């Protein structure tokens, strides 16, 4: 028997997800959302989506059911060296300067999924001789993603940029291939990351909608939050950006995804161009 979500139950469940972790699902996503909810519902032993909703709402004090649902819903598709030019520029323009000025710097990879982004940052820092001076914190709302990040074993799709036949070209590509060769070993179950690289990253489960959790991370010279805000409704983007802005050092910068402009939001940030990359900084009073 196939269970489907009525528009009403879809609205109720999707608003619960949005309220708790900010992920916004529109009617175009209803089918995908329903499939994932129904699969988790069946696993949890419920026969009706409303029963499952009430379990999430009233009988999930530790959030175990909700975490499992979140693991299924979050978009984990990412890969090494994604939009790498902007990352290289941000490290050069922001992090290197902070290290030169203070001898140390902190980077936060917000919504790191299975770890490809923080490990990319770690590889680039190691190559620049800065890894020892920089601490990297990486967070994600999905505990499964964090577990995968800690395990640090990746499939070929994560390596698409440096794979043979990759359409990516440009002067950086040979260097990226060299970095990947240096830090990964291919085994039968996938590409294993160098443990020293993985250990350079502190992973934590964190909900970007939880300002207290965000403030508990401390402040950062660079916050990297890419390809995440597009999944949030406008109101949520504003709240999250406020929170991220609060996590910036006075001279810190936020790097968003290439397709995510914050310009249309009334945020406490200003945009600036540095070395060809757009970064956001706290607005001057």
């Amino acid at each position, binding site marked *: 028997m196939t269970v489907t979500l009525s528009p009403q139950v879809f609205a*109720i469940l999707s608003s619960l997800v949005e309220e708790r972790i900010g992920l916004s699902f529109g*009617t175009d996503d209803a089918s995908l959302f329903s499939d994932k909810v129904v699969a988790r519902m069946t696993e949890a*032993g419920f026969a009706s989506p409303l029963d499952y909703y009430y379990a999430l*709402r009233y*009988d999930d004090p530790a959030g175990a059911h909700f975490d499992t649902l979140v693991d299924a819903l979050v978009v984990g598709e990412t890969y090494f060296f994604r939009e790498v030019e902007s990352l290289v520029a941000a490290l050069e323009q922001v992090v290197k300067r902070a290290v030169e000025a203070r001898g140390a710097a902190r980077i936060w990879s917000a919504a790191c999924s299975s770890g490809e982004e923080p490990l990319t940052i770690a590889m680039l820092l190691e190559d620049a001789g800065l890894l020892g001076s920089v601490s990297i914190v990486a967070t994600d709302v999905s505990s499964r993603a964090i577990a995968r990040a800690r395990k640090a074993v990746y499939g070929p799709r994560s390596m698409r940029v440096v794979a043979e036949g990759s359409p990516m070209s440009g002067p950086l590509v040979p260097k990226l291939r060299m970095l990947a060769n240096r830090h990964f070993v291919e085994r039968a179950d996938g590409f294993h990351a160098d443990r020293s690289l993985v250990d350079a990253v502190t992973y934590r489960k964190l909900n970007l909608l939880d300002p207290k959790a965000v403030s508990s991370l401390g402040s950062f010279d660079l916050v990297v939050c890419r390809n995440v805000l597009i999944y949030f409704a406008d109101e949520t983007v504003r709240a999250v950006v406020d929170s991220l802005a609060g996590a910036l050092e006075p001279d810190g910068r936020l790097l968003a995804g290439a397709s995510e402009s*914050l310009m249309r*939001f009334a945020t406490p940030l200003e*945009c600036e*161009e540095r*070395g060809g990359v757009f970064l956001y900084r706290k607005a001057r009073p």
Partner: protein
Amino acid sequence: MSRAVTVSLSAEDRARVEHIEHLARAGAQNVEELVAQLDDPSWVVRRAVVSALATVGEPAVQPLVQTLVTRRDREARVAATVDALAASRAPLDARMVDLAKMADPAVICDALQVLGRRRYRDAVPVVASFATHADDNVAVAAIEALGRIGGVETVDALISAVELRHFFRTFPAIDALGRTGDARAVAPLEGLLSDPLYMAEAARALGRTGQESAVAPLAKLLLDRTDVIVRTAAAALAELRERYEARFGESETMTRALAQAVPAPDASARLVDALAGVSATELVAAARVLGWLGDDLAIGRLVDLATMAEPVGSAASDALRRLGPRATEALLAAIREGDSARRLGLLPIVGYAAGSLDDLVLCLSDDDPGVRVAACEALARLGNPAAVGPLFTLLGDRDGRVSHAASAAIQSLGSLESKRLSLEQARSPDPRTRRAAIRIISYFGYPEGLDVLVAAIGEEDEKIREAAIYGIALIDDPKATAALLAHIGHPVARTRAAVMRALGQTEAAPEVVAALRAGLRDSDAWVRYYACQALGRLAVDAATPEIIAALHDESGQVRVAAVESLAHLRDLAAHEALAKAARSADPDMRRAALLGLGIAKRGEAIPVLREAASAPEAATRLVAIGALAELDSPEVVPTLAHATGDPDEGVRNAAIGYLSTRPSADATHALLRNLSRPEVRDRVLAALSVAADERIDVVLAMLETADADTAPNLVAALARMRRPSSQAAIGTALNMDNVHARRAAAAALGALGTQEAKDALARSAMDPDPDVRRIAAAAARR
């Protein structure tokens, strides 16, 4: 060197925006101050000023016009002034027409832009007169305004601009002309296809016309020697068909038109050849056209494309599904010979048309569990009960998803063999197989399975017990209820909860009711939850006081279940408690109560439901209109009609869906009023196409006076109903006095292509309107 540019809101800007919002709230008295800030250096602040002036309305119009005429020294101010006028709530269109008659070409351009953006139809003759203005800027502004206003009244002026072949004027005119969707646009656009300068733009515009007569000229481009032209033609053809089908639904006419225009194998070969290294968007269009061509070469290429990533894969899959049996052989061959990855991509496409069982059964033993799942699903779609035997072998599959998919397929297929095999497998030593078999027995409620199910309640595995309990409840036998009652005190709370839920599927016998009432006092919240639900389902009015008491249970889910339960009780106290819960501050309690009011179908609930239809949370509004839709009252349609303009897409779509199920005149009118809104137009057309004779009468009545924009939509709704009475109605429209109705009806009958349609069009060969005669003649030629 770094360059810093402020592009978003600083603290200072934020304060100024708040000040502007304050000024706007105060209204007319602050217009002067607002106008003075139209050239503020901050874009965000200017946006706020524009919005404020537009909201102020009439008092701001004259100062804005004055600014537009006399203060043109700053581009930012001029642009913001135009924006404010375009968005103004005031009825200023006639004043813009007067402004357009000024001598200053720059002001004329701005006035034309405002008229275009406001889509002021009455201005078309004036705007059209500027399309031939000596000043290129004015002419282009007029053409763009005509494009924005749209509609058939703009067609002649746009055709003139296209035929000028004047670089600056022709390009915007081509785009605007295509968007009119008017049949007269095809010939002048086709005329440009031989001109390399305009060819690509003209081809795209032909695609946007959605006219069948555009198929032939575009199809001929598929044979061109230049790859980019072939790809442009494919993209245009894909859009052409999409727009055509949005109006008339799927139609053989388009398939025939393409087949008559070019030999399919030649066009497919040329198109396939032109696809090397192209973008995903172009591949999507190519997949649609290959599906339309439908020859062997096209099918072969589609099979390859179907295994590509999104969006190409799904476009090719859709094309293959539409081809149905014609593509089955190629698909099955690719599945038979392909590796797991290829099978995974192709299996979701098969099973929609009769195909070979053997090839799909072969995939049940694929190494990849994803392939096995996809094969189970394909076999379910195929609907051949002979697949049941092989599917049973997967019940104990090591991958739970496969076992689940095999069970689901067996449940979908049924058959006597399913009974025999499930009873046999219910005794399997493998717990996974046993559990799946018990689920199947439960699903079908085989009376012969009762003993097996009763025995399964004693299983160690909690999930087997639950599956057995649910199945027992479906078997109509006194022994079944007795078996359930024997386990109301089971030591495991989940099992007790399952028993309560199952008892809700039986009848309200005294011992059942007593067990459920006792369940309301269980220490476990889920036992109380299901006991509450079950008492409601069985409509045990005597339990009303206990259920009302459960509204204050310590567990939220029990409180909500109590609300749901009240909806099924006939006691006045239950209804009052339900109505009170519908105004609860707790959104879950409120929504459960609203759902309940819909179930209870009591007219007194309408005010509460209408109030909830304006709740701040979209989910509550959605539940409220869903509950209202259950009721039969004249007050329902206005609320649903209002909800079609809801800010939430889900609410809008649901409201349109509910209106579609009501064939009454008021519901039909409510839908028709939304046809002019582009964001819901397709959905409204689909809703109107839900056939009902009463709806046909309303649509016909509206066609008597429909204008040139509305008539095609009304006829499209009739065409998409696809029933004899709706097609007869189109024939009636062909004889109306209203020329717009006749034109739309003629186009629709041409698309239908039936003998009756051809006969009707033949009778229109002497119609006084040249367009109707032209369509009739084209149909006769076909």
